[in-house]
């Protein structure tokens, strides 16, 4: 699994192109952001954190809860 992820990252980076600043219009669109909707993203993280055994990945943890 770790090798597969590494290969995917390397494949992605190897396909990088030089993108001029005036060519970044699509990248700057709201729907292209890594997280769309701050409150919604925080809510999903909290729900999945409290109902599944897994957490983490791309965000540092905040204050926990005694969720049952």
């Amino acid at each position, binding site marked *: *699994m*770790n090798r597969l*992820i590494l290969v*995917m*990252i390397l494949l*992605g*980076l190897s*396909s*990088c*192109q*030089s*993108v*001029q*600043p*005036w*060519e*970044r*219009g*699509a*990248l*700057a*669109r709201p*729907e*292209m*952001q*890594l997280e*769309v*909707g*701050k*409150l*919604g993203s*925080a*809510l999903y993280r909290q*729900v*999945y954190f409290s*109902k*599944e*055994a*897994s*957490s*983490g*990945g*791309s*965000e*540092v*943890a*905040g*204050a*926990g*809860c*005694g969720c*049952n």
Partner: protein
Amino acid sequence: MKTKGKPSPILALTSAALSLPAFAVTQPVETELSIMTSSYKEGDIPAHKVLTGSDERYEIDIHQFHVLTPMGRNWGFSFNTSRETMSGASPQGTVEGLDGQPALIMSGATIRESRTEIGATTHRYFDNGYMGIGMSHSQENDYEADAVILSGEWDFNQKLATLAVGLSYSSDVIEPTDALLFGRVEKENKHSGSFTIGWTQVLNKTSVLQSGISLTKHDGYLADPYKLRDVRPDERSEWAVSLRYRRYAEKSNGAWHLDYRYYEDDFGVHSHTLQTAWHQNLGASFQIVPSVRYYSQREADFYLPFDDFTLPLTVNQSSDYRLSTYGAFTFGLKGIVNHNNWAITASFDRYISAKKYGLSDSEFEHPALVNFTLASIGFDIRF
């Protein structure tokens, strides 16, 4: 007439506007305010799976608020708060039923409680990134958590790549209710430290990839004091690796999101999470977002389908459904109405989980695996 290799004045203006990094956090130029209210409801457990107690699961009302505002030339400040009020019953134990399948011991009375979280963060912005420090506090009648978070981002390669680093530390205290009455621990502590590093890379004019790794270490009291028998190690090390891919499709006027995470810890749990969404613009003011999330986890090494009361208290065991083997799907639909400086968002998600959806196998399905619906409506404004 264009001069080869030299952008026109219009292009130069456009480039100035767009030279902001597409993905690194930049200083806000106006105040952003968001509110959201949500309703979370778990499906009841089938009565034949409940040996004693209530079959009604949790219902939670959630209210969230967030504000982000610029301060001076190089600073920004954000404040967020959330308030949850919840009621319902939760599983306290699992025993072998007459049919040989696990049967639940649920809490008898409906539990009513609330949780309030507040957090504040300040950012110092530089030409090529920012550094931030934040604090948060979470309060329940039996649980209190304080966290401090350090974060930073730096742009590289003409802002085509961003390195993000985050550190957090949380100190939690649990004081279970009715501890003396039910022989629960009276007061315990937990400490957690987390480190995250991520690399975001613009691949071309329409796509970007982020890869991230997080390491988390917990120590202290990690068991659930409300369960009849729940004994867990007093340390837990977790790591996760994630990939997030975004691609804009000009012809369709939409964006495709694909996220994957692999998670593993020294409890023996490992999991895969795959999520995809399509953000479809409909004209200039509307957007619709269908999404699917798949999750699969393998059970913890000390997970038992039935509580074993003959084992000594020094031997780890837990029948918590969150440590069992299962898989889950979330089906979501979100609609957004945009109008100049404000937006309204409404979303609905349905989560279903079962042993048969999991990639790993186990003999028994936990009877308390949760199904829930989550409905939200939010309002955002910039001024």
